[in-house]
């Protein structure tokens, strides 16, 4: 299994692949992933130029372990097949399918990736896939999309296009996205995949941004697409376990292991009744803390 399937992805920062000033050193801000965009950020008459820029960035810039996702143009356009060739030739880490609406869309991308892997001598399965859900149809088909390929690590909501399709708009309250978010996270978890929230574009409202991060974290999301480095610290803070949570999780894991050996099923930790059902969540907290580099214990 590709270990990147489950890597930590709290932040995925959009960058126009055609802009050298943006793509030369985004790793200094330490996002978990960058998303080099060949799609909406690139003008129609610069699609070719963006690919040359992308190719050399992938081959020559050291992104210091930050995941390099490339958003390709939609399957309804003429651009996406050459986008896949350059992604594979440049050996990006993951390809993001724009406007994904069905398992067939995932399969079409997989087929082109396989052809390109063969052409450029790239190991099959070394480049992963994620799907952006940008329409009501895409949201309705989340589970079939999530289960379409073992290379697909997750799905992301694209709120702008989705709300247009829903015939409403981004209100700032989140009410227009509530159904999509709920549907996506349930389907993604049922399929064992990751789930990412849409961008928050009002950079003057950092408090609103924090509240949205806290809400989607509570809903179960793994992270958020972001548009500015200023959003990274807040997102990471929200999506990284606190020391209190880590301490509690550590006690739960150790106590469950110990009590299980003694044949005890229910006990208390810090005054809370604990049983085996708490174990997976506690283990997840420890794994998340390890991935975020904040765990100093011995588990």
């Amino acid at each position, binding site marked *: 299994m590709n270990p990147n399937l489950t890597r930590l992805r709290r932040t995925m920062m959009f960058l126009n692949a055609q*802009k*050298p*000033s943006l793509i*030369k050193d985004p790793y200094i801000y330490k996002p978990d992933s960058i998303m080099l965009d060949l799609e909406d950020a690139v003008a129609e*008459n610069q*699609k*070719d*130029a963006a*690919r*040359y*820029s992308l*190719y*050399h*960035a992938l*081959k*020559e*810039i050291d992104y210091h372990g930050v995941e390099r996702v490339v958003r390709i143009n939609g399957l309804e356009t*003429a*651009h996406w*097949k*050459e986008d896949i*060739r*350059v992604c594979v*030739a*440049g050996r990006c880490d993951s390809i993001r399918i724009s406007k994904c609406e069905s398992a067939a869309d995932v399969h079409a991308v997989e087929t082109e990736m396989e052809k390109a892997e063969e052409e*450029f001598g790239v190991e099959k399965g070394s480049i992963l896939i994620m799907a952006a859900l940008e329409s009501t149809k895409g949201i309705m088909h989340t589970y079939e999309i999530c289960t379409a390929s073992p290379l697909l690590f997750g799905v992301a909501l694209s709120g702008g296009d989705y709300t247009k399709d829903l015939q409403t708009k981004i209100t700032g309250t989140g009410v227009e996205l509530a159904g999509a978010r709920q549907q996506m996270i349930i389907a993604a978890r049922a399929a064992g995949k990751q789930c990412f929230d849409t961008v928050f574009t009002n950079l003057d409202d950092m408090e609103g941004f924090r509240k949205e991060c806290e809400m989607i974290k509570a809903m179960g999301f793994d992270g958020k697409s972001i548009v500015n480095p200023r959003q990274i610290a807040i997102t990471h803070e929200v999506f990284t376990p606190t020391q209190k949570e880590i301490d509690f999780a550590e006690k739960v894991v150790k106590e469950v292991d110990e009590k299980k050996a003694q044949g005890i099923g229910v006990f208390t930790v810090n005054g809370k009744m604990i049983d085996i059902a708490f174990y997976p969540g506690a283990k997840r907290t420890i794994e998340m803390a390890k991935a975020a580099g904040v765990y100093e214990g011995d588990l």
Partner: protein
Amino acid sequence: MEVTSTAMAGTLESSDCQVTVEPGTGIDLSIDSSVINQFGKAIKKTVLETLDRLDVKDAKVTVVDKGALDCTIKARVEGAVFRASGYSEDEICSGKKLPWGGAIR
């Protein structure tokens, strides 16, 4: 590759460079850069090596550099040369495959 028309790639934004390629005889290169004293020779070398990889023998090439990294200079030279040699986006999307990892590297 044969440069058959005039084409440009890149911008005049910081960290970018704008490359214009025109039909010519031999390689006629001119470079304008804000960092010409420190990096002029390196920029020239990157441009000439890229033209060589693309097998461009005859072209007038004008580079206006705004502090671009090597990888950007290569990308802009390639962009201009391919555009000037019949590789429009329409042609590429119609199946005229670009040599990633070959002449483009």
